[in-house]
C-alpha cells in the first residue's frame, strides 16, 4: 500500500529541532536501561534509575511540546498515514519486533533481565531495587520493573495525549482518570500495602476477575482468609467487583467506566497506543473473528476458574465455607439465570449467530458440569484443573494479552487484546449490549460519510456505517473512548447515558426529505 499519492516527493515528515532533541533525551534514558540489562553495574543505581526514568519522561514531554505547541488546539492527525511508524512502515515493524521481544524475555526468560532466584538481583532488575525497596521494602522482581515502566508509559504518553486533545474536556478527564488509577491502584497502593502487611497477597483492587484470572486461586484465597477482617474484606470485594459493582456501573455508564477510564490495559492503549489506534481492522471478517475468539476466551476462563476453585474446595464445609458441590451448583444456577433472562427479555436484540453462540456455550458448560456428577475421578470436567490453569495462563495471560496484545501495537492497533481476548471486556460488552443506558447518539442527518470515526476507532467498529444511516451505535465492543466524537468534523456523534427506550433507534426522518417519505420507507421494512 502506498498511502501517499505523491508523484514528486512526499509530504514533510522531518521532525523539528525540539522533537529531535527530545528523542535524543528519551533514547539516552532507554540506553541507560539497556546498559543495565547487559550487566553494566552502576555505582549509585538509585541515582541512575532516576536519571533514566526522568530522561524518558522528559523526552516524551519534550516531543509533545515540539509536536503540538505553536498550533491552535484541535484535531491534529496530519500525516498519520505518511509516517513510517504510524503507517506500518519499517519503523513500525522494528518497534513491533522490539516490544514483542521484550515481552518474550519478560514472561519466559526473566533471568536475562537480571532476575536471580535466591540471591541478589543483577542487571536491569537490580537497577530497580532501590525504588522497590523504597516502596515495599523488598527487592525488585521482573514484575516490579514491568509495572514501573508501564506506569511511566501511561503517565508520559498520557500527558502527551492530554496535550494533543487539550480542547476536549472528555478526553482530558478520561486520561487523568487512567493515569490516576495506574499510578495509585496498580502501582503504589499494592506496594505500600505489601510494606504495611506483608502477608496479604499483592492486590490491584481495580484488576477484576476474569481479567485478573488468578484472583481466586488457592494461595490467594488462603492468604486473604488468613489475614482476618482486612483480608476477608478484600476477598469479598473481589467477588462483589464481578457480581455487583461491575454490573451496576456498566448499567449506568456502559463498559467505558472500566475499559477507558480505569483499566490498566485500556490505559496503556489509550495513551502509548494512541498513535496506532487507526490500525485496527474494520472488516466484517475481523468482527466475526472477534466475536468467536473473545467469547471462547470467556468460556475458557469460567471453566478454568471453576475448575481451579473446585480443586481445592473440600467435599464438605470443614475446610472452606463453600463445598465443591455447592460451587458447581452455584455456577450452574447463576449462568442459567443469566441465560434465561437473555432468552426471555433480549432475544430479539441478539443477532442470530450470537444467539446460537450463547446456546452452544451454555449447553457445553452445563454438560460439563453434568459430566462431573456422572464421573468419579479427580479431574474436573474433562481436564486436570492445574493443566487448565497453566494453559490459560500461558496462552491468554502471557501470549495473548502481552506478546500479541501490546507487542503488536504498531501493526494491529492498540486494542487487540481488549477486542479479541479480554474476558472482562466480553462480560462488560454483553451487558453493554443488553442492559445499559450507554449509547453513541447519531446527530440526525449531519453525517457526511467522511470515515474519520471508523478510521480512528481503536476497536475496529465501522462507526460510519451507523452514523450515515442516522442510527445510534450500540455495540458490545465499544469502550467509549470518545475519539469518534472528537474527530468527527460535523459534530455527529455523542456518547450518552439515557433511558433504555429507543436506545437503538432509526431516525431516518432527518436523513431524507419530509416525514411522509420516511413513513413510506418505514413500511418497506
Amino acid at each position, binding site marked *: 500500500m502506498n*498511502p*501517499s*499519492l*505523491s*508523484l*514528486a*516527493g*512526499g*509530504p*514533510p515528515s522531518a521532525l523539528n529541532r525540539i522533537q529531535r532533541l527530545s528523542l535524543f533525551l528519551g533514547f539516552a534514558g532507554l540506553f541507560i536501561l539497556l546498559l543495565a540489562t547487559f550487566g553494566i553495574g552502576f555505582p549509585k543505581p538509585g541515582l541512575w534509575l532516576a536519571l533514566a526514568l526522568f530522561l524518558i519522561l522528559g523526552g516524551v514531554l519534550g516531543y509533545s511540546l515540539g509536536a503540538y505547541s505553536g498550533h*491552535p*488546539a484541535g*484535531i491534529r*492527525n*496530519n*500525516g*498519520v*498515514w*505518511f509516517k513510517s511508524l504510524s503507517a506500518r512502515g519499517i519503523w513500525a515493524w522494528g518497534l513491533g519486533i522490539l516490544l514483542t521481544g521484550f515481552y518474550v524475555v519478560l514472561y519466559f526468560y526473566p533471568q536475562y533481565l537480571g532476575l536471580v532466584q535466591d540471591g541478589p538481583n543483577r542487571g536491569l532488575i537490580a537497577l530497580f531495587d532501590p525504588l522497590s525497596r523504597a516502596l515495599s521494602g523488598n527487592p525488585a522482581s521482573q514484575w516490579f520493573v514491568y509495572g514501573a515502566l508501564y506506569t511511566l508509559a501511561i503517565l508520559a504518553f498520557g500527558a502527551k495525549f492530554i496535550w494533543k486533545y487539550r*480542547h476536549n*474536556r*472528555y478526553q482530558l*478527564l478520561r486520561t487523568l482518570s487512567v493515569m490516576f488509577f495506574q499510578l495509585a491502584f496498580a502501582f503504589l497502593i499494592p506496594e505500600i500495602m505489601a510494606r504495611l502487611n506483608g502477608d496479604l497477597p499483592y492486590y490491584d483492587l481495580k484488576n477484576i476477575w476474569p481479567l485478573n484470572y488468578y484472583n481466586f486461586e488457592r494461595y490467594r484465597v488462603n492468604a486473604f482468609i488468613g489475614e482476618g477482617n482486612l483480608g476477608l474484606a478484600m476477598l469479598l470485594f473481589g467477588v462483589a467487583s464481578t457480581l455487583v459493582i461491575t454490573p451496576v456501573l456498566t448499567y449506568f455508564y456502559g463498559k467505558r467506566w472500566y475499559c477507558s477510564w480505569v483499566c490498566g490495559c485500556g490505559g496503556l492503549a489509550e495513551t502509548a497506543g494512541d498513535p496506532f489506534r487507526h490500525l485496527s481492522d474494520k472488516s*466484517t471478517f475481523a468482527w466475526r473473528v472477534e466475536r468467536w475468539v473473545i467469547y471462547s476466551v470467556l468460556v475458557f476462563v469460567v471453566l478454568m476458574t471453576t475448575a481451579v476453585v473446585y480443586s481445592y474446595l473440600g467435599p464438605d464445609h470443614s475446610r472452606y465455607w463453600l463445598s465443591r458441590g455447592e460451587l458447581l451448583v452455584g455456577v450452574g444456577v447463576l449462568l442459567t439465570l443469566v441465560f434465561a433472562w437473555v432468552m426471555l427479555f433480549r432475544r430479539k436484540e441478539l443477532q442470530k449467530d450470537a444467539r446460537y453462540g450463547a446456546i452452544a456455550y451454555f449447553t457445553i458448560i452445563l454438560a460439563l458440569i453434568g459430566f462431573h456428577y456422572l464421573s468419579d475421578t479427580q479431574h474436573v470436567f474433562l481436564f486436570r484443573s492445574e493443566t487448565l490453569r497453566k494453559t490459560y495462563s500461558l496462552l491468554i495471560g502471557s501470549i495473548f494479552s502481552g506478546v500479541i496484545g501490546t507487542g503488536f501495537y504498531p501493526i494491529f492497533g492498540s486494542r487487540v487484546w481488549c477486542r479479541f481476548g479480554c474476558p472482562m471486556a466480553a462480560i462488560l460488552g454483553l451487558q453493554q449490549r443488553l442492559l445499559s443506558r450507554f449509547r453513541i*447518539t447519531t*446527530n*440526525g*442527518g*449531519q453525517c*457526511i*460519510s*467522511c*470515515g*474519520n470515526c*471508523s*478510521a480512528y476507532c481503536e476497536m475496529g467498529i465501522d462507526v*460510519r*456505517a451507523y452514523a*450515515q444511516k442516522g442510527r445510534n451505535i450500540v455495540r458490545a465492543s465499544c469502550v467509549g473512548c*470518545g475519539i469518534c*466524537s*472528537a*474527530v468527527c*468534523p*460535523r*459534530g455527529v456523534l*455523542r*456518547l*450518552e447515558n439515557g433511558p433504555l427506550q429507543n436506545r437503538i433507534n432509526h*431516525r431516518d*426522518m*432527518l*436523513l*431524507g*426529505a*419530509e*416525514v411522509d*417519505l420516511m413513513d*413510506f*420507507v418505514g413500511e418497506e421494512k
Partner: protein
Amino acid sequence: MHVLIIGNGISGVTAARHIRKNSDCRITLISAETDAFFSRTALMYIYMGHLTFQQTQPYPESFWSRNRMDRIRGYVTAIHPETRSVALADGREIGYDKLILATGSKPNKFGWPGQDLDGVQGLYSYQDLERLEAFAPNATACRRAVVVGGGLIGIELAEMLRSRDIPVTFLVRESSFWNGVLPAGESEMINTHIREHHIDLRLGTNLKEILPDANGRVRAVVTEQGETIPCNLVGLTAGVSPNIDFLRGSGINLGKGVLVNRYLETNLPDIYAVGDCAQQREPIGRRRPVEAVWYTGRMMGETVARTVCGQRTAYTPGHWFNSAKFLDIEYQTYGWVFPEHTREAHEAHFHWRHPKKHICLTLAYDRGSGTLLGVNTFGMRMRHAVLDQWLTEQRTAEYALTHLREALFDPEGYSDYRKHIQTAFRQQTLTAS
C-alpha cells in the same frame, strides 16, 4: 427495467441504493472519476494524511455485487433520448429505460488570464487531488500557494496546504470571510482564526491574472491592487457550477443546471436530474435553485428513487440544515440565518460570543412574533432532531434559549454556557424594549 445513473457521487449512489431497496430492476452507474463511491467531503483528509483513499469509501467492494449494481468507468459525451442511449468517449453506447443525471459540479473559472496553466486547479474531484499531490507535495516543491475564493472549499484547501507547511496566501473578494452567508460577528471570528493558522488572509482582494513561467507552469499571481505574489500553485475555489456541458444539444432544458420540476423530472420523459447538477425551475422556499450540498444531494437521490420505482414523489426537503468545519471551528446551521445585506426587515438576530474562545451562537427570529427562524453555532454542537422539531413547532427564540439544554450536543464534560447565553439574551431584549 434498466436504470442508468450518470455519476457515482452521493446523489447517484443514494438513488441507486434506494432503487435497490424498492425494486429489482437493473441498475448501472457510470463514472469518469473513480470506480468506487467515495466521500467527496473527505478528499481533504487524504491529502492531510488523516485517511487513506480506501477509508473515504463508505461501502466495501463487495457492496456493489451484493446489491447487483453494475459499474462502468467511462466519460459520457452525449445522450440520445430518441434512442434511449448514452454515448461514451471510448465509443460504447449504453441503453437505458430510465436515466438519472447526477453529474455534480465543476469548479468555477471566471476567465482569468492564465487560469488553465499547469499548477492552477480547483478542488472538487479525485483527479484534482492527484494534481495537487503532483504540484504541491511539500514546501520544497511548492514554496507558496495562492487560494482564490473565500468559501468552504477555499478554506479547506488552505488548511490542507498548511498541513504540509506550505505558505498560503488566501485571496478573498469580500470584505470578510464568507460574509455573503455568515453574519458579521461570525465572519469576523473566522477571519481571526484563519490568521491564527498562519494563513496570509487578504480580504477585499481580487485576482487579476496568473503569470506563467517558461514551461507553462504558474509562476505568480497579480491582484487587482497590482501586487505580484510569486507562487507554485493556485487554487481556484470561487464556487462551483453544474457539470452539464455534455448535455448541450440533447434536447434537455438547461439553465445554470439541468432544469427540473418538483419531481426532479426534466422536460424529457424518464430523464431525471439530482444533486449538484439539478436546478429547480421554482425555488423551494428560500433555498437556492441549485443546491450543491452533500445533504440535499442525498435527499434528492432518495426522492428520485421513489419516483423511478413508480411512487411519484415530490422533492420536499425539510428545514434547511448544513454544517462545515473552518480549520478547528465546527459550524452548524439549522433553519435560516441571513447576513446583514440579504436580511429582511422582520428578521432579528441575537448573537452571543464567548469572550475568549472561538465559540458563538446566533439566533434569528421574527421581530414581531419572536418565532425562531434559524440558528448558527460555531464551536458548539447542536442536536439536529431537537432544532428541527422547534422549527416545525414554530417555537419562539425565548423558548429555544430556555430549553437550550435539550439542544446541546457537545461531548460530556464540556463547559456549559447556557447561563451566559440566557443572561445575554435577557439583557438584549431589555435594551430593545
